């Protein structure tokens, strides 16, 4: 404690004065305009940098932690990293194509090593939990236990997905307590977690794709706490990209592989990209450069990145609803791009504008150059963007971009909306009759959504739902409340933002003739990502609320899921012997960005057709 006694109040004053000097420097320096900071944040999205946001989003799976020594297998060598190897190579590639290279470990983690050491014996157990089958390869780097070291393992699991395997691994390592202490509550801002022990400190992360999983560990025996090694975040990002690139090359990249937009291998091949190329979905959806408005419903958005950031790419797909013309929607996008002014030096040149695909090149001064391609399918419009940030004029040619656009066209026509192919996203599916507009009274507590977003009351009419009786909209007994289904409450609904309105529908006249209700909730922002987030949140809430049923003072509500996603039958059983009441509830996103609807059928002439009628109404609602 001697050092504590060295300190005096005078010292404290000296230190405070010194720090105030620094504060004066800070105060004298202009703070960056917040618009610039936000632009920088948006640019991070546009530039498709796989930094922490993407890493975190990708990795619910970025796990906590365990050393290889903590794998709990008797095959596990000690100390870290594993010494079970037999083969030494100058570089992890190409044998370790899905894992970071030796150069990555050197640059990101400062590990001084000239070679990696192969993990020759597949590890089988992690903390008592079996590791996935399908061990592909692995290596350690830095074999001297007195210096920083790392290791990496690559699995292509069989019988489960890479993501599921990663989740299981994450759960397993969270429980590890020896020889490393796992700190499950601690998550590095870059997406990893860290451990500490008498052996030193380090990071462990797990990354995954649909098909594969990789585990990375870094340890430094001299670090006892707080490693502050943000380079590990970069290493994880690199691992993610290499895992994705490896997956695409392993599985090939032909049109037979499903996907409504070009696959990563097709980007790589048509543009001649080298090195690790990654493709990741953008979730939630973000803005598309140059588009002042977006047609239809944005259903897919992806970003393409390469090592070294010498290339960036993006692709987005809009599903164009029934009754809307795809070509007209595409022309709108074309006009936006042709007139785009994304910066003072931004200049767009129309290169191919007759028919589709349409191609535009652009230059952006110091920000480089690039291309846009506008592609149409049966009921989709897609925009591809090639960003070449390092050249004043893009090194990519019209032929290359045209070939990519041609591939996109083929994919849209085979796998896009309105085709026989399997849609690659959860975009609203529109089948059956076309929705019509019908002006109806909408009730709600505040700003009301347009009546155009509601299924026309006359379209509720059907033989099985109303026995053919005419249906109309009218003020209901629940007027003023937006809780329209069992298990919903006004209090719960009051906590939900956006505009909300309800239309009540009756068969015939009279207050006792109501057969159902529709509620529409709309996010009032204009930001597509925010709108998508709002819709996703409502859909998630519905699943949680209706999926498990509920109880109340005089009974319980039993939930039975319907044959379609987002539909349930709610059977209310009363304790006092009153007859059980059934209603059919469905929730779906609508064509209007940020709109989500709930349809409740409270009375059906033929209850056996309740779910079928619900599906019919939901299909009409989706078109709105």
């Amino acid at each position, binding site marked *: 404690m001697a*050092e*504590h006694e*060295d*300190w*005096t109040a*005078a*010292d*404290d004053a*000296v*230190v*405070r004065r*010194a*720090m105030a*000097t*620094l*504060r*004066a*420097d*800070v*105060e*004298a*320096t*202009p*703070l*960056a305009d*917040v618009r*610039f*900071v*936000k632009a*920088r*944040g*948006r*640019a*991070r*999205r546009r530039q498709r940098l796989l*930094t*922490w*946001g993407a890493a975190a989003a990708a990795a619910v799976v970025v796990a906590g932690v365990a050393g290889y020594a903590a794998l709990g297998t008797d095959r596990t060598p000690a100390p870290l990293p594993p010494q079970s190897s037999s083969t030494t190579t100058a570089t992890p590639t190409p044998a370790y194509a899905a894992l970071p290279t030796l150069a990555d470990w050197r640059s990101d983690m400062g590990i001084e090593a000239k070679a990696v050491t192969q993990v020759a014996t597949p590890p089988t157990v992690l903390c008592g939990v079996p590791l996935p089958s399908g061990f592909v390869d692995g290596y350690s780097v830095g074999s001297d236990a007195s210096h920083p070291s790392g290791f990496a393992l690559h699995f292509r699991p069989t019988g489960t997905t890479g993501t599921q395997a990663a989740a299981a691994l994450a759960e397993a390592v969270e429980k590890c307590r020896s020889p490393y202490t796992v*700190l499950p509550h*601690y998550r*590095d*801002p*870059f997406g990893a977690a860290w451990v500490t022990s008498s052996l030193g400190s380090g990071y462990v992360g797990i990354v995954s794709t649909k098909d594969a999983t990789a585990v990375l560990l870094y340890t430094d025996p001299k670090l006892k*706490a*707080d490693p*502050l*090694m*943000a*380079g590990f*975040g*970069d290493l994880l990002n690199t691992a993610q990209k290499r895992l994705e690139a490896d997956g695409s090359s392993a599985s090939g990249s032909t049109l037979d592989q499903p996907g409504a937009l070009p696959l990563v291998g097709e980007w790589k091949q048509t543009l001649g990209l080298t090195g690790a190329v990654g493709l990741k979905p953008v979730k939630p959806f973000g803005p598309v450069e140059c588009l002042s408005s977006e047609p239809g419903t944005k259903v897919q958005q992806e970003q393409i990145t390469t090592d070294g950031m010498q290339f960036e790419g993006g692709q987005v797909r809009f599903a164009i609803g029934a009754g809307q013309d795809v070509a007209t929607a595409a022309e709108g996008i074309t006009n936006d791009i042709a007139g785009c002014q994304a910066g003072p030096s931004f200049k767009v040149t129309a290169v191919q504008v007759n028919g589709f695909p349409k191609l535009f090149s652009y230059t952006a001064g*110091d920000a480089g150059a690039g291309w846009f391609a506008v592609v149409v399918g049966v009921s989709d419009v897609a925009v591809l963007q090639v960003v070449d940030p390092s050249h004043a004029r893009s090194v990519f040619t019209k032929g290359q971009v045209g070939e990519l656009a041609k591939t996109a066209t083929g994919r849209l026509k085979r796998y896009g909306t309105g085709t026989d192919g399997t849609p690659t996203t959860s975009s609203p599916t529109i089948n059956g009759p076309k929705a019509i507009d019908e002006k109806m009274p909408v009730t709600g507590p505040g700003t009301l959504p347009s009546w155009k977003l509601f299924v026309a009351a006359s379209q509720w009419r059907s033989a099985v739902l109303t026995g053919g009786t005419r249906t109309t909209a009218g003020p209901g007994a629940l007027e003023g409340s937006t809780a329209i289904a069992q298990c919903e409450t006004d209090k719960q609904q009051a906590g939900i*933002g956006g505009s909300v309105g309800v239309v009540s529908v009756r068969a015939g006249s009279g207050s006792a003739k109501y057969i159902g209700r529709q509620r529409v909730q709309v*996010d*009032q*922002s*204009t*930001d597509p990502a*925010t709108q998508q*987030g709002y819709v996703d949140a409502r859909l998630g809430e519905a699943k949680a609320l209706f999926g498990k049923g509920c109880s109340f003072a005089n009974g319980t509500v039993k939930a039975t899921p319907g044959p379609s996603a987002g539909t349930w039958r709610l059977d209310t059983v009363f304790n006092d012997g009153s007859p059980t009441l059934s209603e059919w509830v469905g929730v779906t996103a609508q064509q209007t960005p940020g709109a989500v609807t709930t349809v409740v059928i409270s009375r059906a002439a033929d209850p056996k057709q309740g779910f079928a009628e619900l599906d019919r109404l939901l299909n009409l609602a989706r078109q709105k």
Partner: protein
Amino acid sequence: MGAQSAEAEFDAFYRDTARRVVHLVYGFTGDLTVAQDSTQEAYARAWQQWSTVRTADDPLAWVRTVARRIAISGWRKRTTQERAHQRHGVHDTTGPPSEDRVAVVAALRTLPDPVRQAVTMHYIGDLSIEQIAHETNTPAGTIKARLHRGRAQLAQALRHEETHHG
């Protein structure tokens, strides 16, 4: 939350807290340019995922930690940094160093990294020992010891500077 309110909320958050983060990173690195850039990058990341960050227990702690790590690890490649600046037309806004600043920075640099971190977080970030312990995942006793040691060493170094330079 609508986009407008999110924007306004972030703007206010940035306006109210950014200088404190610059100051903290400046104290830790001794480089005002690095501090500014790391802080901007941290806030840019916060904006990139504001819907998540805003719900954190302490969004400022999130930004502070990210900024500190960015500055310390030097993870950003210089080429990326330069390109980002070029894209947005940003230039170095720092003036020449004052004598006082040189002395303080020199004194701070005499401290080991963990000690300097504790000192700057306490004196500049106005964080309590418990908060520093939480953010750095270090026992509170260790932080306390680092603070005491750092304070004494720093004062000694500063007094030495004053003696030599008047």
